[in-house]
């Protein structure tokens, strides 16, 4: 079956411009995550969506970052007034559900990422 897809695969933009990154999760997956991977760094959590619940935005680095998830499926991450430090690979992941309780072992399936370069 189809995995998580992201578009575009590469995006080059000028400082100060806005960008939109898209994620198509695996069909039927209710949980969706955005992460950022900078050069030499591990993955940094940005935002989490689960069903119809309010998103967990605790990882967003500034108010220039926002994300939406329409109809419980496709998600768009928007970065306004991009800065050079925003350059990174932005990864999206989805999972079937978010286990409740202490022992969460949901498998997150990652997309290939969007490489963003801000000049």
């Amino acid at each position, binding site marked *: 079956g189809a995995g998580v897809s992201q578009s575009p695969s590469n995006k080059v933009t000028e400082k100060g411009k806005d960008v939109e990154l898209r994620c198509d999760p695996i069909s039927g997956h209710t949980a969706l995550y955005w992460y950022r991977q900078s050069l030499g760094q*591990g993955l940094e959590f940005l935002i989490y969506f689960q069903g119809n619940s309010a998103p967990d935005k605790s990882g967003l680095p500034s108010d220039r970052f926002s994300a939406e998830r329409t109809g419980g499926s496709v998600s768009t991450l928007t970065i306004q007034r991009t800065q050079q430090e925003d350059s990174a690979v932005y990864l999206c992941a989805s999972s079937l559900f978010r286990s409740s309780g202490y022992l*969460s072992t949901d498998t997150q399936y990652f997309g290939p990422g969007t490489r963003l370069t801000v000049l």
Partner: protein
Amino acid sequence: TQLLEQSPQFLSIQEGENLTVYCNSSSVFSSLQWYRQEPGEGPVLLVTVVTGGEVKKLKRLTFQFGDARKDSSLHITAAQTGDTGLYLCAGVMGGANNLFFGTGTRLTVIP
């Protein structure tokens, strides 16, 4: 500040050698996962360990979760060129919605 520190950061070995990658933290995790990531792709889950002291084997890969659930290790026996990639550990903390990823270990296996 990273919750999970991995060592070594870079590792280059000859095919057939053994290696161990470490993932350490001062925090307790409810479970810990290991991923492998290849260039241009997202991370792919290798294993999840849940119980303190747990050992899981996946062919030539052996994963261990520390007794106190603060650390983990990945041991590869007789490395092959196909093992080349970025290895990431990731922890799950009770009450958090996200994975906390380690700093990564970039492994190169030379034929």
